[in-house]
């Protein structure tokens, strides 16, 4: 195994609006970079094979499974993690939906689920139940049976479209 200087990389990202630069091994997975270098442990991991979606974060506006992306590949990117969902105005409608509709139990899949759901609603503000299920089909949850996750996303969709209407009125 070679150990030349390219084994280490410097990674600069904007995470939840904040600029950060950290050195890490080139092989460091983005999920570990976020958890261990950026100290944001709200992003979890659940498998090693990009099947469960627990580790999903937003990279340049797109949800990505951060267990299957190198931190080095995210250099220069804008990241949003669960910690970036809440703003000064309060919880994001997705967060409100998950609370109001009991869309979580153990909370372990929830951060990835919410980031994926947010992206789904950004692309399709008024999804059908089937479209929500399809859009979240890369996210596994072992507790909720998805029933209330669907409701949570519907809650958020309504809330977001209501506030859109409010804004345009």
């Amino acid at each position, binding site marked *: 195994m070679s150990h030349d200087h390219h084994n280490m*990389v410097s990674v600069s990202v904007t995470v939840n609006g904040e600029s950060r630069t950290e050195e890490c091994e080139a092989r460091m997975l983005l999920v570990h970079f976020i958890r261990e270098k950026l100290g944001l442990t709200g992003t979890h991991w659940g498998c090693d094979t990009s099947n469960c979606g627990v580790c999903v974060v937003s990279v340049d506006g797109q*949800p990505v499974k951060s267990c299957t992306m190198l931190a080095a*590949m995210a250099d220069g990117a804008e990241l949003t993690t669960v910690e970036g969902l809440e703003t000064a105005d309060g919880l994001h409608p997705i967060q409100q939906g998950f609370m109001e509709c009991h869309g979580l139990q153990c909370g372990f899949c929830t951060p990835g689920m919410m980031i994926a759901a947010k992206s789904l609603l950004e692309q399709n503000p008024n999804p059908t139940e089937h479209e929500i299920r399809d859009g979240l089909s890369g996210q596994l949850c072992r507790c909720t049976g998805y029933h209330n996750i669907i409701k949570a996303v519907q809650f958020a969709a309504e809330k977001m479209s209501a506030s859109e209407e409010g804004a345009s009125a």
Partner: protein
Amino acid sequence: MQTPAPFGYERATSVDHAIQLLEQLGPEARLVAGGHSLLPMMKIRLAQPEHLIDINPLAAELGSISIDGDSLVIGAMTRHNDLLASPLVGEHFPILQDAERVIADPVVRNRGTVGGSLCQADPAEDLSAALSALHATATIRGSSGSRSVPVRELHVGPYETVVGDAEILTEIRVPIRNGCGSAYEKVERRVGDWAIASAAAVVWMDGGIITDAGVGLAAVGADHFVSPAAEAALRGQQPTEDVIVAAAAAAAAECNPSTDQRGPAEYKRHLAGELTARALRRAVARAQGGQ
């Protein structure tokens, strides 16, 4: 969590740079695009490349979908979701969107690339079957220039392609011909899983006759992901149910599935026929103007 072994990391800034790096670093260097096939293999340390050359910076150069003359050109760095969302693709080759809808899941499709999927050469890979059925060609570039290889000849075996150690797949060209209809059918154990079996069907029709056809198969041990016997059974025929059933039977007979935890060979062979027939029916309907 599983973690990859150490490697040297390089970022390619252009296709030429990527080729130069491949030549410089030798056969233990690997290109990485979306990484959703390679990184899991590296995490279980089945793959331990000494160097990774990150070609994500080439997304702009290799990531477009366009019409060039009478071909649809798909850049190798096109992400699965971009192929799925492309109106051009939908207009000409709905089979690719059928296939994309059942490749992994929406989040994985944000990262995974068309070129990466083809070069991984998994025997169950969907686009290999669909693009083979479409008679697409792959453009492969090395330091001495580009060459064009039919997708049907891209794969030399499981996880093996004709792309050389210091070459890069740059684009896929799909010929656009009149009267085309295409469709893709897949059965999986669960949404997002690799196929138990899948079938790709393309027909080109003129005056009610199938003038040419492509039948692709994935996960059932079909040589080069295609069934020439099924294609032969279609050419020059009217697309009657009898013709479709005969072509499907030819596809089932010609493939060579093996038994694994997705199912016994007998079942997969049945699926090869069943799905070929279903895909052909939809392809014909699309060629005739329906959806």
